[in-house]
């Protein structure tokens, strides 16, 4: 059973990836608080506009008609450690916050591999400040806005209204809206899903990112996040794997502080306990994608791969991309369709899916077909591929979420000894980001501002976000892959390689990609705390009391 949560006390971005709820446009604003009193007034001003996790009306759901309609834009607030300090919170409350949050993202560069081309000197000017501590430009508040779109794909006019309002607030005496995003020094970070035209000429969103992959498919499901019927639909492939191999939602406490977590404990919290209750942490990362390098590297490698395997260049190109990610560009997992031929067959079998997704007013049968498709996209276990012959052990999705890979009895024939995902359940993160920059395949140049705004949310940054990045993305020990790291997201040097496993008795044998260039570079980021609505109110009133 799902835990009942006070959804109206919880910020909406924790339970929803807005991009997947019809909000393809986003803007991220950073503010500096000059005086604590102005900061409190600022929070008080924002408070009535904060989007909560309250259930929204679903046009296909006829049972829950009392739910509110989706707003045209959403607004969510998060505070950095320096922001909490600037708000004059009691030292006892501040001192017991987690060390990685107090450090901030910039000082964690060695854990996050933010070195070399990802080093701070390459970050956007607005993100420089956590290191330089320049007076008056320290990042204190993150305000995230998401907006729905009009039929032609442009954002609803409310987005510009909210932007103007935030600019006005940020021009006050005590609050400063920080500028210095991207190369033009913009005063907000833009992000937006890729939009593609439907048959009727109107636009629909597409989850693609700049390397040409569908992104954000696998996101954890935690208890209380969804109403029971939605949870039942979404938990497969997204929740945790039990010993009997069934799927259950993860414990609420992995993503919401103050609730019991996967080790049957309450997550770390400061005083007063109410301060962090129903809140969580947010790691914001601006990740630049060297799309041209990626394209040309895969293109070069495909020539040899095509020759050796005796396949056309285009097939080799798509296969190598899929092997690196673990999914085909259309999102179909290698675990479902391991070869190019099977992927083509799968695509033909499910050719009606784009039309179904675009269809307004789906029938129950339509929904059932979409659900079956969704299951095929996400419901798999690595027990079915211990050698990595289908999905390479080092592939991006296999590193980001190991599912049952760490089960000590993965190879056991005896079902009663299986453990499911017990060893990975405490390493899950909610991903709430969107791509940024133009989706123009004609522009083949690394210097174009494009990439992904990567937002991770979890109850413990160190145990969840930093662990996944340091140990799984940038190291290979847990996977028996030595020093190999993620072929896409990892920090690469001249020794970097990526092994594509094959069945031991296959004729072609394994393949190795060598001298991986740097495909993704960090351009900024910070750790934030996402307070509950009640905590925001307490901060605004200046009554946070640890005694």
């Amino acid at each position, binding site marked *: 059973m799902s835990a009942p949560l006070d959804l109206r006390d919880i910020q909406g971005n924790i339970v929803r990836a807005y991009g997947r709820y019809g909000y393809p446009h986003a803007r991220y604003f950073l503010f500096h608080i000059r005086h604590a009193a102005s900061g409190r007034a600022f929070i008080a001003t924002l408070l009535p506009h904060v989007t909560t996790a309250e259930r929204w009306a679903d046009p296909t759901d006829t049972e829950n008609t009392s739910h509110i309609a989706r707003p045209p834009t959403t607004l969510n607030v998060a505070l950095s450690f320096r922001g909490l300090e600037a708000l004059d919170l009691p030292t006892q409350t501040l001192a017991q916050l987690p060390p990685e949050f107090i450090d901030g993202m910039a000082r964690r560069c060695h854990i996050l591999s933010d070195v070399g081309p990802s080093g701070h000197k390459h970050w956007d000017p607005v993100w420089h400040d956590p290191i330089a501590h320049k007076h008056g430009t320290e990042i204190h508040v993150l305000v995230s806005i998401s907006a729905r779109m009009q039929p032609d794909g442009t954002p609803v006019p409310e987005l510009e209204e909210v932007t103007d309002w935030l600019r006005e607030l940020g021009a006050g005496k005590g609050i400063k809206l920080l500028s210095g995003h991207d190369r033009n020094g913009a005063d907000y970070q833009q992000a937006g899903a890729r939009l593609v035209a439907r048959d009727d000429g109107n636009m629909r969103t597409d989850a693609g990112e700049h390397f040409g992959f569908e992104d954000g498919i696998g996101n954890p499901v935690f208890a209380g996040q969804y109403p029971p019927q939605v949870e039942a639909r979404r938990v497969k492939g997204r929740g945790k794997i039990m010993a009997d191999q069934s799927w259950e939602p993860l414990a609420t406490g992995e993503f919401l502080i103050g609730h019991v977590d996967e080790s049957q404990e309450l997550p770390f919290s400061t005083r007063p306990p109410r301060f962090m209750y129903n809140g969580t942490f947010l790691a914001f990362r601006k990740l630049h994608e060297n799309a041209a390098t990626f394209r040309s590297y895969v293109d070069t490698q495909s020539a*040899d791969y095509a*020759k*050796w395997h005796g396949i056309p260049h285009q097939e080799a190109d798509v296969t190598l991309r899929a092997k690196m990610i673990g999914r085909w560009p259309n999102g179909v997992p290698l675990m479902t369709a391991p070869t190019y031929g099977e992927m083509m067959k799968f695509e033909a079998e499910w050719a009606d899916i784009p039309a179904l997704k675009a269809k307004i007013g789906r029938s129950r049968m339509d929904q059932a077909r979409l659900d079956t498709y969704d299951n095929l996209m996400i419901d798999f276990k690595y027990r079915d591929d211990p050698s990595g012959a289908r999905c390479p052990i080092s592939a991006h999705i296999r590193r980001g979420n190991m599912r049952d890979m760490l089960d000590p009895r993965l190879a056991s024939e005896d079902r009663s000894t299986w453990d499911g995902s017990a060893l990975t359940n405490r390493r899950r993160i909610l991903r709430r980001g969107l791509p940024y920059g133009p989706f123009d395949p004609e522009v083949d140049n690394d210097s174009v501002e494009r990439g992904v705004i990567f937002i991770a949310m979890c109850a413990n940054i160190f145990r969840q976000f930093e662990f996944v990045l340091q140990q799984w993305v940038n190291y290979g020990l847990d996977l028996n892959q030595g020093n190999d790291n993620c072929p896409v997201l990892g920090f690469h040097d001249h*020794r970097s*390689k990526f092994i594509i496993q094959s069945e031991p008795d296959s004729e072609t044998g*394994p*393949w*190795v990609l*060598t001298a991986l260039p740097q495909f993704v570079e960090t351009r900024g980021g910070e750790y934030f705390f996402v307070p509950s609505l009640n905590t925001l109110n307490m901060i605004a009133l200046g009554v946070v009391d640890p005694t």
Partner: protein
Amino acid sequence: MANYDAGHFFLTVMAPIDRDGWIELDGQRRSVLDHVRGILTTLPTAQQDTPSTESGLNSPFAAVPGTHFAHIFVIDELRFNGRRPSNPIIDLILNTHLTEAQKVDRLPHAYLVLSLDFDALDGSDAALKAYTDGLWREMRDTLVLIFGHCIGFEKVTGEDSFFDYMRAAQVTTSLPYNDYWTQEPPDRSPLKWMIAVSLVIIMLGLAGWMVPLWSLELGNVATTLLLLIIANIAIIAWFGLTPFPKAPDSDINSVLKALYIQQMFTGFAVENLGKSDTDLQSAFDAFCVAHQPAVISGPRQTPGVLHSTWKKP
């Protein structure tokens, strides 16, 4: 088991340092413990990360034959674990004054601790001597610099007196670190012995019950039970004292050879992707000549570094 296990000698040495000692620096008397810690801080580690690799320096222990891991540090006092818990009812009966301070244990000296493991055939003094001779040979100046502040070290003048000093300061190691078993070790369960001995005792007990002829009164159920418990504990203890078998190829030179071959073979595999059978065979022959996979004394990784550089044969 203590000191020697799984083919490795686990040496722990605690050399006393006078807590009240001092050394003179720039006309000021300074704590000798602070001084020794200062030397240890500047002692190079193995090349285990980017900064230590870039430094070009390496741990002096890397030069000592047979060394796997070495750890050297100073302890100045026991950690106080707080008051020993007591039962309030017993306290009341005994009229214990809870406000009176309990005794706080203290060490007679501060100690320089050297803890390391090395390859050895057994846990004998001869095996230890062979290693300390190597230590003295390769690290004499560093050892004198550090251990020179320890009580009694002034008597050390050469290999023999160094061994005597280390032997005298050695403490029994009860917690070895060893991670070379990569597969499940052979089953060493004492269960077979326990069952066999228990059966014998029970049979003797039954016999004693039917024919009461021994003064031990084996027929007595309580005696039989007591014998069962004692015998089984003794078997478990005996098994516990037997050294664990050595993991295959777990001596340091084999480990260094394996690390080397692993990296060279990865390079070879990458280099020869997609080659024809004939080309592959001749490339592999050249590989075997260059890297001598079966010869432990052939090319292998330098001790104390993380990587070997791939060399095309």
